[in-house]
């Protein structure tokens, strides 16, 4: 097997990831993950997609993206986290996932797109979509419209959450909870949290990491909900590594001295993976699938936020 066929694709996404990382160092508001996926989408749609890039890009999706998720396990910190908070995070995750599926059914969105939308909104956006898509045999159009819709929603949240925070005078904890549980992509959580206060970032990301660990349940649920004939449950290796890493980090101090390099490495891998995912997102999917998936996402997201608001005011 010739490795040279991987070079162009891998080279492109690594270039995007490097550019994004560099940009994020220049300006922290340019989160590497967000910029990577946006750059991937723009490059993939504005320039001709060459077949020579395919092998490398697919290779990145199947190696670097899972590796990035797996390494993020070492970033999960349960210190200063109450069990009730984890329960609330899980409830929000369930609400987002269930409500999106329900609304998708109401609005006649096909099942695979519905699962991808629900997975992306409830866990980790484009990453979840990329993980779930092959497991449920989704079409490229399903994946594309899901990522575009999630991207759209995430950017909206990322821009408006600080405004919402100022309007509703949320406490830091409330804002971190809101951003960590309802924004689909990690980069968006980081940008939104950073725009409120630099300290919010870590707390919001902690919540976000807890959500990412729900990928374990998500994979199982997604396979069960899909219309695939052979519903064989197979937990991806990176989820196991993610959970293993999280457990080790939270129970032992083995990785303490490597946490920063691991964070950088996982961020870079994820950045490259998202650039690769973005590269294959096709705007034509919007024409084929329409605005309904976006509408369903916004509706489910809005309902859950309203529910959170009411619960906050009641309790």
């Amino acid at each position, binding site marked *: 097997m010739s490795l040279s066929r991987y070079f162009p694709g891998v080279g492109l996404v690594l270039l995007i990831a490097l550019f994004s990382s560099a940009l994020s160092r220049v300006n922290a508001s340019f989160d590497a993950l967000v910029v990577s996926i*946006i750059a991937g989408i*723009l490059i993939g749609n504005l*320039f001709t997609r060459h077949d020579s890039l395919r092998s490398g890009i697919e290779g990145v999706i199947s190696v670097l993206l899972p590796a990035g998720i797996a390494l993020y396990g070492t970033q999960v910190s349960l210190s200063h986290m109450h069990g009730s908070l984890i329960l609330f995070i899980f409830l929000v995750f369930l609400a987002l996932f269930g409500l999106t599926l329900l609304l998708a059914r109401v609005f006649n969105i096909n099942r695979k797109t519905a699962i991808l939308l629900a997975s992306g909104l409830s866990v980790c956006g484009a990453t979840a979509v990329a993980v779930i898509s092959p497991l449920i045999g989704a079409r490229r159009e399903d994946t594309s419209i899901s990522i*575009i819709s999630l*991207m*759209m929603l995430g*950017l909206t949240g990322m821009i408006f959450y600080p405004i919402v925070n100022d309007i509703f005078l949320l406490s830091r904890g409330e804002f971190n909870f809101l951003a960590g549980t309802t924004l689909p992509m990690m980069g968006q959580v980081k940008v939104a949290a950073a725009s409120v206060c630099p300290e919010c970032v870590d707390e919001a990301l902690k919540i976000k990491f807890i959500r990412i660990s729900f990928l374990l349940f998500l994979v199982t649920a997604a396979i069960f909900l899909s219309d695939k004939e052979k519903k064989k449950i197979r937990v991806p290796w990176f989820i196991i590594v993610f959970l293993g890493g999280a457990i080790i980090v939270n129970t032992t101090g083995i990785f303490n001295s490597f946490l920063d390099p691991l964070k950088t490495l996982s961020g870079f891998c994820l950045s490259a993976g998202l650039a690769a995912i973005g590269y294959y997102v096709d*705007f034509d999917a919007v024409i084929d699938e329409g*605005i309904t998936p*976006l509408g369903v996402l916004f509706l489910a997201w809005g309902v859950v936020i309203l529910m959170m608001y009411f619960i906050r005011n009641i309790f």
Partner: protein
Amino acid sequence: MVRTKIVYRLIGMFLVFAAMITIPLTFTVISQVNKMIAEEEAVRPPENQEYEKMHHAFSSRLLEQIIPYSFYILVMALMLSIFLSRKMLVSLKELQRGAKSIMDGDLDVALRVTGDDELAAVTRAFNEMAASLKEKTVDLQKKNTYVDAMLDPLWIVDEMNRVTDVNLAFTRLFGYSRDEVIGASIYDFFDEQNASVIRNQLNDRTEKKTASIYEANIITRDGSPLPVLISGAPIIVEDRVVGKIGIFKDFREQKEFRSEIERSRDYVETVVNSIEDQLLVIDKDYRIVTANRRALEHVSGSPAGQYCYSVSHDLSKPCWAEGHECPAQNVFLTGKNFRTTHQHSGPGGDKRFHEIVATPIKDVSGNVTQVIELIRDVTDRIRHEEEIFLKNRELIALNSIAGLLSRSLRADEIFMNVLDRMIEMIKMDGGGIFFIDEVKRDMVCQYHRGISDEYIRMMGRIRMGEDIPGKVAVTGQIMTTSDISKDSRIERSLMKHSGMKGYCCIPVRGKERIIGVFCLFSFK
């Protein structure tokens, strides 16, 4: 390299416009902020270094926030614009799909019309165009089916005599594939001789703008010539010949038939010309339709078209109008064979006898349309028959005389009986037997029939050399006359005025000399 889809152009345009707005706006805001800070510091200088540092960091922080957020807002707006422009893009995509469907030959395409804007109007127009195109295509396909269903090959030729279209029958008959034929010059399918024929025909047809039918040999794919009958016509558009259409008829069978017919005709002609008799075919107008070579020998020029009575009898009216027997008329009237013998004058004025056998030629309804006259010169045969008849009569007479001789030896009885037999056989009215008296040098009638004794007493003695009997006795030659009254050999007036007409005198020979003469006469 850069995609050329409309959606990407929109994205590109959007980004350019967005950059044109956000970049100057950002720098304007920053500039204004710096100006405001400077103005503020001019009025109220910073109280301490930290305050001053915060003041100076303000614009850079603002810039740090504005740039990424502008970027994110732009991306968000871009995506939203794609969602919102979907209707337009759907219409465009539908039009693209429709165009591709039509390009692929699917004319049943009906595009979904969304909205009521210009694109919707274009989509509706497209649907109408597709429907119209389908209608016309179906019509064309039907015509094409008809053309392809034709058993006869067909080609369409342009102004430059290049083939622009052929039907299935063409490829089947000549073995060429459609691709081999399209674009080729028509002259590639003919040898030099046939190409010349075709060239003349095409030039003539183009010039006169008329159709024509001609025969040529077309070269098939395996190189063999194939005889075809070409029915060609110009294709005229606005009074200008823009092409030609040629329909081919496989002429192999017909050519074979024609050759066969020609061979048969030649054979029949040979057979007919080999007949020694004259053969004429005469139509109802008594015109000669055809004649064999033997018949042609008897007329000058071709008899075809001439009246039979004019050719054979040199008459200006039909024979039957002149009261003659006409075999052709007889056959036309009865519808049956008719056989007769006619006496005609030969080239030298001699009598010629012709046996004519007339046979009807009937059409499918049984009507006699023509008559075959087979004319045989039977003059020799008639003469032979006459001779045989005479010989027979002689033999009968001899036989009769021999019979008489065997029954009696009495001279009187024998001569009288012979005289009677001769008169009876030759159908004369009477006769007499003269015996020569050598001493007196005259002849005496000793036996007679059909004349009175008184006449015999006056005319019963004839001198040798006088009148016909006397001359016969001297010369020993038979003498006959059809009218004794006008015959100069008769000298005596009594004999001339006896009322006899036909007269025959035969010498009676004895041993080495003539002993008398035998005379027979008739009053007719």
